[in-house]
């Protein structure tokens, strides 16, 4: 029997998700053993045209990381969708837009202008901008055009499963890959479409070992301003922790290292918008019934949008700035 085919792709991503796959250590040998790798730009030199030549649905599993923000990203996402039986949005970028999705707080013009002209590190007076098409002696050169709005994979093509995290934790990846191999080897049924794999059905707080006392707070602190108690809930100490609005699965990695959860596992089950959930969570620990005082206390949160939507802006209710 021929081996099932596997593709791994990166679109608008940082490469961390690819590294996280390699980080499963010896298990990567099982992957190489069981699957026939047909595409993995980060790790090996496959050609798009060879993948394009494959029949539809001939790739058993595609792990797609990265958000979609260019014509090229969309083209490859569609192509891999056609060719794959199971399409997985792998990591926060593909699932929720993640850090690339924060580009949605600006227009593309603003971003290009800053990056190529006005950033302090640019030589002043420079006018060089990337052009989608350039004529050279040998003919026309093209590069993909960026979009004004960064999108999640599921906003562009049909997605079967999600593996959240920035990046997904390697033990979770290993467990999911182990489960997939078991399913394929033993002809077991696939989980229902849309299932979030490699994570829990609860929030990050549920995995957090810190003590909670429903203490009410009257002031917020940036992480550098105080030395937090290592055993008490950070939110109750006035440090914005996204644990209540984040899916569990990482084992509360950051929180156990005395850093607030930044929300990389995306929304927990039953929550649609991470920012809205964080507003409720914050409101429930603030100790005041005086509107003016509340306003003052909330000012202690420097950047609500960037803090609450750090990983899920592109998949939030509003998705981008509406200005």
């Amino acid at each position, binding site marked *: 029997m021929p081996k099932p085919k596997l593709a791994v792709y990166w679109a608008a991503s940082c490469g961390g998700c690819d590294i996280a796959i390699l980080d499963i250590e010896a298990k990567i040998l099982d992957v190489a053993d069981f699957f026939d790798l047909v595409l993995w730009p980060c790790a090996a030199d496959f050609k798009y045209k060879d993948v394009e030549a494959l029949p539809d649905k001939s790739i058993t599993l595609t792990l797609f990381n990265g958000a979609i923000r260019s014509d090229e990203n969309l083209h490859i996402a569609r192509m891999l969708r056609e060719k794959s039986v199971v399409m997985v949005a792998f990591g926060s970028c593909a699932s929720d837009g993640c850090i690339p999705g924060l580009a949605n707080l600006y227009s593309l013009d603003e971003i290009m202008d800053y990056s190529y002209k006005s950033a302090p590190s640019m030589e002043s007076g420079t006018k060089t901008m990337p052009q989608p098409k350039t004529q050279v002696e040998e003919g026309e050169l093209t590069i993909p055009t960026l979009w004004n709005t960064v999108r999640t994979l599921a906003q562009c093509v049909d997605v079967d499963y999600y593996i959240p995290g920035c990046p997904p934790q390697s033990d979770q990846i290993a467990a999911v890959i182990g489960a997939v191999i078991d399913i394929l080897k033993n002809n077991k049924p696939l989980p229902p479409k849309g299932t979030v794999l490699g994570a829990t059905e609860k929030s990050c707080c549920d995995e957090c070992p810190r003590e909670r006392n429903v203490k009410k707070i009257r002031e917020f602190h940036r992480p550098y301003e105080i030395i937090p108690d290592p055993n008490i809930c950070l939110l109750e100490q006035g440090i914005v922790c996204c644990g209540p609005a984040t899916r569990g699965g990482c084992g509360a990695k950051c929180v156990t290292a005395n850093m607030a959860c930044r929300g990389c596992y995306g929304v927990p089950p039953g929550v649609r918008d991470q920012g809205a959930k964080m507003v*409720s969570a914050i409101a429930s620990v603030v100790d005041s019934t005086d509107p003016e005082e509340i306003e003052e206390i909330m000012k202690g949160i420097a950047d609500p949008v960037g803090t609450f939507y750090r990983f899920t802006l592109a998949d939030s209710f509003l998705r981008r700035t*509406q200005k």
Partner: protein
Amino acid sequence: MSNTFEPKILGILCNWCSYTGADLAGTARLKYPPNVMSVRVMCSGRVDPGFVLDAFRHGADGVLVCGCHPGDCHYVEGNYKVMRRIPLTHRLLEGMGIDPKRLRLEWVSASEGVKFQQVITEFTEQIRALGPIQLKEVAFAPDEHGGNGHVTDKKLAGEEV
């Protein structure tokens, strides 16, 4: 165009005070603009900031949340909860490029039919002055309302992507 603009406003009213106050305004035949579409919730403390964001992305021009006066909530402190949520929701809206003035919180008791009339009139005029909410359409694929919500070439072509 702007003088014919009729804002679409979502009103979320608590059952025990504000909805009853609205009812009183009706039975007393007080006149107020018809722009607010009311939804009744048991308590203003039920108003999740997600309701507000969801309303805006579906094209509401304004959202009005009304509850019992502080100290009068039938569930003791539901209205304090919403009181703490709204300022932060305002800042979220601002960060997302939506004028925070499009969201307002008001306390209306069961006997304040006249106040309800005033609030509705004033808020409708305020939203009318702000003009229609203008969402960047293409970001709003109909994901939960039929269709698969995927970006299509037709949507990408010609529209601001």
